[in-house]
């Protein structure tokens, strides 16, 4: 069963079999506006929780995407690089950014579940 968690920086992660798929939330994409460009990390890169490893740009804003867990990048999504509009269309599905093999599954405890994230979004908007 996949574990789904959210970070305070509006990233989501779905973990299955020790590998987490990571993207930005629907709330994030609506705040950013039309996404025009994304940068994803190279496969093989070692990452630390909280590190800025990807970039998502709209016309008027640019944001770092922070990896919510430590580990190694095992896959990056070329589809969103070629078609940034996907991030607006399906941020929490097809428009995942990259996948990480988790070094420390305990880090997930510090993240929010969906209910907590939805509350967080309501409170900070």
């Amino acid at each position, binding site marked *: 069963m996949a574990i789904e968690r959210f970070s305070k920086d509006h990233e989501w992660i779905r973990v299955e079999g020790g590998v987490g798929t990571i993207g930005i939330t629907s709330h994030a994409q609506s705040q950013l506006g039309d996404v*025009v*460009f994304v940068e994803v990390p190279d496969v093989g890169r070692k990452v630390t929780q909280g590190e800025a490893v990807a970039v998502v*740009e*709209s*016309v*008027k*804003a*640019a944001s*770092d995407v922070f990896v919510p867990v430590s580990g190694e990048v095992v896959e990056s999504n070329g589809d969103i690089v070629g078609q940034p509009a996907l991030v607006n269309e399906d941020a929490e599905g097809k428009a995942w950014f990259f996948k990480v093999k988790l070094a420390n599954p305990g880090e997930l405890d510090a993240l929010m579940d969906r209910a907590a994230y939805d509350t967080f979004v309501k409170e900070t908007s």
Partner: protein
Amino acid sequence: MRYLPLTDADRRAMLAKIGVADIDALFADIPRDKRLAGLVDLPKAKGEMEVERVLGRLAAKNTAAGSVPFFVGAGAYKHHVPATVDHLIQRSEFLTSYTPYQPEIAQGTLQYLFEFQTQVAMLTGMEVANASMYDGSTAAAEAVLMAHRVTRRHKAVLAGNLHPHYRETIATVARLAGHEIVTVAPSPSGTEDLAARIDQTVSCVVVQTPDFYGHLHDLAALAEAAHAAGALLVAVVTEAVSLGLVEPPGAMGADIVVGEGQGIGNALAFGGPYVGLFATRQKYVRQMPGRLCGETVDKEGRRGFVLTLSTREQHIRREKATSNICTNSGLCVLAFTIHMSLLGEAGLRRLARINHANAVALAKALGKVKGVEVLNETFFNEFTIRLPGNAADVIEALAKKGVLGGVPVSRLEPGRPELANLIVVASTEVNSDEDRAAYVKALKRVL
């Protein structure tokens, strides 16, 4: 005062509307003990006539380039600017407009930027160019920073024959930004082995052609050497007109081409404002500093232009920006674009041929003067001569005889006594046979 429309009656009425007794109430946040009690100790307002008199007196002390036989270059070149150019750039809607952040009412500016970007890409033989930098020297410094970003390395190799001011500008930024530069001794004869200095720690090699001493360089081999080591080739062109006759760096494998566009459309103006050219390959476009104008459509489907890819810039990315740059060279870009539109390919090629022809004729004439040696095999409109004695003294003496004969290399390389007998001499389309004859005559008398 002619520039201030408010009358005292207006001011009183406005203060009443605001609800304060006097203007000082609006300055109340300034600490009382720091407020200036009286006027700053400077002259009071002057009418136009008086201002003209003051500035006219200062101007009269200077020798204008157009008033004497003139052969000064070294990074800024006297070319004839057609009357149309100066007239058009003074149109209110160009002169007094702002950065095109509201594109619906700035299509004039945006369209000429798009035309300029295309002209620069064509001239340099590259795929894409930006909407200009401040000047050639800062463009070169930005190119080095871009090469560092692209290669993730922090060491630049600078050719010895790069314009000394460009080298110093790059060095200042490098020193304070914590990057490394490798400098090479100048080679007035035009031979340098830069390939030997490129290794896996180098982000770019910066080379100028025509170089500071006038020599033309085939960059193909150097480009290969740089690419083999994973480094970029940055080519510098300080005389834009040369691109009308000389093979452009883009055709020789350059990754970034920067240059000075002053020679097209812009006055000498004692060194500024000028216009920096910056061009690169499509794959590096997001790492390019400066403004970019792009094509799009409006709500009615009509073609229009907007500033684009702005998320690289300081106002969005802030500390992660590609650069801290805010302005481009606006009106100087327009002057360049208009002049280039009047020239077109045919006109530019002919202008370049005239420049080269004049320089060839001058080199021949000077080479015949006893004691003078022309160092260049190849050149465009500028070459270096070696004299028997101190070149700076000769230039002063020539000036006293009413000839501005060039730039003594020691002016820019004072720490190199071995270069003290060299002069860099430029000759553009403004020089006539009489000018050349005057130079030769004066030089003979002075040597």
